[in-house]
């Protein structure tokens, strides 16, 4: 087990991000709203080709400006090379860094606020990837906050910008606004009735992309999906947000209708599935990650339709995050193989749910 500097991420074990509190609008279906802005510094090579010295210079410059000017309130700043592989995975599970950021070496860093709401990945594909993460459907509020963060940074750092192409990014798919909005949705009824394919096909036609839980290249687990804009150039940020706001309520309505239909149909055994999942979650002595994704998905439905009353979405969200492999290993303070993790997962659940 790598124990080097493992205290650096201890803070993440005693708290959960603000976005998990399920306080946002439409939180029965919309898990979170996220906006990401890609920004680069003028006069420096992009991360993929920059020499280690140049990238260290970029990282030092950004971290100095962040510290000096208190750009992020109550900031934690983590250099990834000071972290163990397990700690990096923990940050991926936390939705604070990408898999790519966790896996690659070099002068990479993460700056994050106390609420795990505002964060910046330093030297990912772009010099800075600003992120805001909020509970439920809160894109207008999210835009306001990330726009202000961007303004604070812009005063201190020379952004690479062209009047024609906008904010210049390493990949031409991000150029322009540098903005990627993603809304995480829980769509179990549309998934089981295979309606989800139809929804996605129509989304793709209007240039939106659908991804799994951890962004690009992942597949949907436990009926959770991320919907994101594909186009970043040619529209004002607010117009892209409006466009998403026009689509999401339609999907929410569709999901709610199908949930009611499923619950009303005794041949679908949805209520039985909910209680079975609930029982297993409370009393099993070993649970795989695949199982827990499925259980949490049906229990979430059980809570939102009012069947399960002694568990809330906040608890469910916390379980979702803390029952992931790196979180369990951090909790147990040792490396666990898959089978050992299944046991640790069940142990965590029994402890977490005993008070209910």
């Amino acid at each position, binding site marked *: 087990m790598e124990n080097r500097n493992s205290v650096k991420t201890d803070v993440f074990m005693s708290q959960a991000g603000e976005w998990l509190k399920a306080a946002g609008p439409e939180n029965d279906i919309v898990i979170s709203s996220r906006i990401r802005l890609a920004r680069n510094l003028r006069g420096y*090579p992009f991360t993929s080709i920059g020499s280690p010295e140049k990238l260290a210079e970029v990282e030092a410059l950004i971290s100095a400006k962040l510290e000096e000017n208190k750009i992020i309130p109550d900031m934690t700043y983590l250099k990834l090379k000071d972290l163990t592989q397990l700690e990096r*995975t923990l940050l991926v599970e936390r939705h604070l860094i990408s898999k790519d950021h966790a896996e690659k070496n070099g002068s990479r860093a993460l700056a994050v606020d106390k609420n795990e709401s505002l964060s910046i990945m330093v030297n990912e594909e772009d010099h800075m990837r600003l992120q805001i993460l909020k509970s439920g459907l809160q894109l207008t509020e999210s835009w306001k906050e990330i726009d202000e963060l961007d*303004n604070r940074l812009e005063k201190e750092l020379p952004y690479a910008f062209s009047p024609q192409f906008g904010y210049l990014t390493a990949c*031409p*798919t991000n150029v322009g606004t540098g903005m990627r909005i993603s809304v995480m949705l829980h769509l179990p009824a549309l998934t089981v009735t295979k309606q989800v394919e139809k929804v996605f096909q129509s989304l793709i036609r209007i240039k939106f992309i659908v991804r799994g839980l951890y962004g690009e290249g992942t597949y949907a687990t436990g009926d959770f999906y991320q919907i994101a804009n594909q186009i970043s150039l040619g529209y004002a940020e607010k117009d892209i947000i409006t466009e998403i706001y026009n689509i999401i309520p339609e999907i929410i309505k569709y999901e709610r209708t199908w949930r009611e239909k499923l619950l009303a149909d005794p041949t679908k055994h949805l209520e039985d599935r909910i209680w079975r999942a609930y029982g297993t979650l409370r009393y099993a002595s070993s649970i795989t990650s695949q199982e827990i994704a499925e259980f949490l998905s049906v229990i979430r439905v059980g809570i939102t339709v009012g069947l399960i009353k002694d568990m809330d979405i906040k608890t469910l969200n916390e379980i979702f995050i803390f029952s992931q492999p790196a979180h369990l290993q951090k909790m147990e303070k040792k490396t666990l193989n898959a089978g050992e993790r299944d046991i640790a997962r069940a142990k965590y659940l029994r402890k977490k749910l005993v008070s209910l």
Partner: protein
Amino acid sequence: MLCEKCQKKPASVHLSHLINNNVVQEVHLCKDCAQHVTPANTKQSLLLPELLAGLMEPIIGKMVKEMGGIKCPACGMTYLEFKKLGRFGCAEDYDVFKNGIEQLIEKIHGTNQHRGKIPTHVSKTVHKEAELKKLQQELEQMVKEEKFEEAAQVRDKIKEYKKKKTNGKP
């Protein structure tokens, strides 16, 4: 443990989806069901870089003759390297490779003119020019749609803008 798919036969095949050698998802299947499974990675939707390569090939192929010898003086990246990687080496590349990327960017985004936020450090003239360009595009669109009344209003705004510019006031 029973097979997760058929729930009948015992699971003897155990598939893991790995991130940093940490299993993030495990699937337990019987021999029969496992044969029908495509690995998680092949089931994924197309990744952006792959999508990009598909878009770039026909466009950039044509440009290679014209642009092949061009190299960015700032980062040293050549147009051919950009074609291969699908990533720019530095912000200057956008300018250096401009003729070779406008079509590509238009293919990706449907346009190659930014209409979003502009940083305040960018000089005020750039602000103004961008605003002017936006208004002119609006005007063209309105004329096309025969919305002449709105078009007249935009035309007046453009006039106003140009007047201010010559006065040197914001």
